[in-house]
């Protein structure tokens, strides 16, 4: 069965690479069109549209480049993670090294977050720039096999290029929100001078309405897209983790322990919640089957892993979309 698993993980990498490119192009077109329409609606002539286009290009481009090249450092700093070496936490460091070897990846940087809530995430645009961060609570509460399952899950995100893909999605969402917000605020402050004398007042009005609808709906759709991708890739990373450890029980036990733990993770917020192996904001996750949750229901993930355990054959869970 190893062959099938291997093929799916190659396919997954290829798909994430392809999707990343597609997303980048969509992002560019979307941001430019958004800027164009808002610029036109606001100022009321093609020069305004051009102005909007340029602003959107720079706002999107700048935030995009910044997130792509420094996003991992920003996330690690925001999570108050500190870098460790082998002697600071030998077991954690060894387990990460084991999983890097199993995945055939370079050793990522290892970080610890001082928080008693058990959780973990991985970041970095490619395997050469990857970091894995775990909370001190996770180290205390999990045994070695469970820790290995969690790290394998994170290394799978690294290997499958999930992080780059979800980072690009995040940039798309962020820029969309930024531009929409800018537009809505500008309306509030009395933007949109009408130039009826030029006879294109009606066009401007229509564009104004289109822009208004876009500014309200685009961030919601972008966010829903992001959340659905975020949920889907958790199942895939669970399946890939089993590919690495050949032991579904470790990860299943770990998820069970993390699910039972009711402590909230203080350093997590809405912007970083989707990164973690389990949603760190427990309060929002009570009824997690909603479109607005960052993670699939944890009971469902545990159920799939338990099925692999008894079935013996590692299957790729819900390998859809």
């Amino acid at each position, binding site marked *: 069965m190893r062959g099938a698993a*291997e093929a799916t993980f*190659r396919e997954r990498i290829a798909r994430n690479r392809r999707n990343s490119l597609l997303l980048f192009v969509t992002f560019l077109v979307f941001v430019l069109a958004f800027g164009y329409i808002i610029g036109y609606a606001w100022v009321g002539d093609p020069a305004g549209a051009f102005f909007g286009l340029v602003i959107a290009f720079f706002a999107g481009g700048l935030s995009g480049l910044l997130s792509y090249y420094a996003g991992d450092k920003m996330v690690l700093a925001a999570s108050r993670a500190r870098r460790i070496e082998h002697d600071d936490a*030998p077991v954690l460091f*060894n387990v990460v*090294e084991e999983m890097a*070897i*199993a995945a*055939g990846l370079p050793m990522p940087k290892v970080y610890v977050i001082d928080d008693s809530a058990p959780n973990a995430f991985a970041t970095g645009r490619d395997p050469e720039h990857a970091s894995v961060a775990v909370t001190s609570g996770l180290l205390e509460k999990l045994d070695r096999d469970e820790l290995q399952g969690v790290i394998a899950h994170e290394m799978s995100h690294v290997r499958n290029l999930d992080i780059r893909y979800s980072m690009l999605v995040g940039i798309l969402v962020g820029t969309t929100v930024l531009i929409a917000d800018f537009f809505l605020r500008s309306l509030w402050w009395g933007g949109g001078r009408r130039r009826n004398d030029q006879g294109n007042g009606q066009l401007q009005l229509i564009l104004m309405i289109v822009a208004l609808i876009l500014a309200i709906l685009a961030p919601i759709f972008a966010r829903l897209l992001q959340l659905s991708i975020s949920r889907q890739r958790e199942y895939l990373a669970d399946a890939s983790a089993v590919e690495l450890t*050949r032991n579904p029980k470790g990860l299943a036990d770990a998820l069970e322990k993390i699910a039972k733990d009711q402590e909230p993770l203080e350093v997590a917020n809405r912007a970083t919640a989707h990164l973690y192996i389990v949603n760190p904001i427990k309060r929002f996750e009570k009824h997690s089957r909603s479109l607005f949750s960052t993670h699939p229901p944890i009971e469902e993930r545990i159920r799939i892993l338990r099925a692999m355990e008894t079935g013996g054959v590692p299957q790729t869970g819900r390998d859809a979309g």
Partner: protein
Amino acid sequence: MGTAGTIIVVAIIALIVLYVIFTYNGLVRRKNQVEEAYRQIDVQLKRRYDLIPNLLEGVKRYFKQEQQVLEEITRARAEAMKPQSPREQAQSEARLSGAIGNLFAVAENYPELRSSRVLLDFQEELASTENKISFARQHYNDSVQEYNTKIQSFPAVIFARAMGFTEREYFEAEGPERESVTVSYD
């Protein structure tokens, strides 16, 4: 007909040449991956050979009556370090793992030793190194599997052998290795 025909023929030849180039590069990449994976096993094996003398040194003063356990490890280590075929290597590594497992089992009878930092640290390092060895093998086997499948599949199979790509041998004995790891780790 003349020019159109020539264009079609040239296009087909160009496509075939391109295909062969891409396939060749893909095979080279996979072959390098297999070799890289194999080197990784060696790195981890060497790390374990280097750890063992330190462990024996740390443990020696705790038990006097168990000389044969220590000697067995030394012997198994020397045996495993000899150059040999992958199959023999796997067998002698399994013997070495067994000998180290014995040491930890015997250490249970020495409360002082059992709780000493020396033993706990080495237990973690050795268990981890054994895990690394078996994960390196797992990765090697996965790479070999991918590479072998590629050169055995049509149409690469037609010219893969002619270009010097041959099947690689798997690392056997993955099963018992993994079990000895769980025994030696507490």
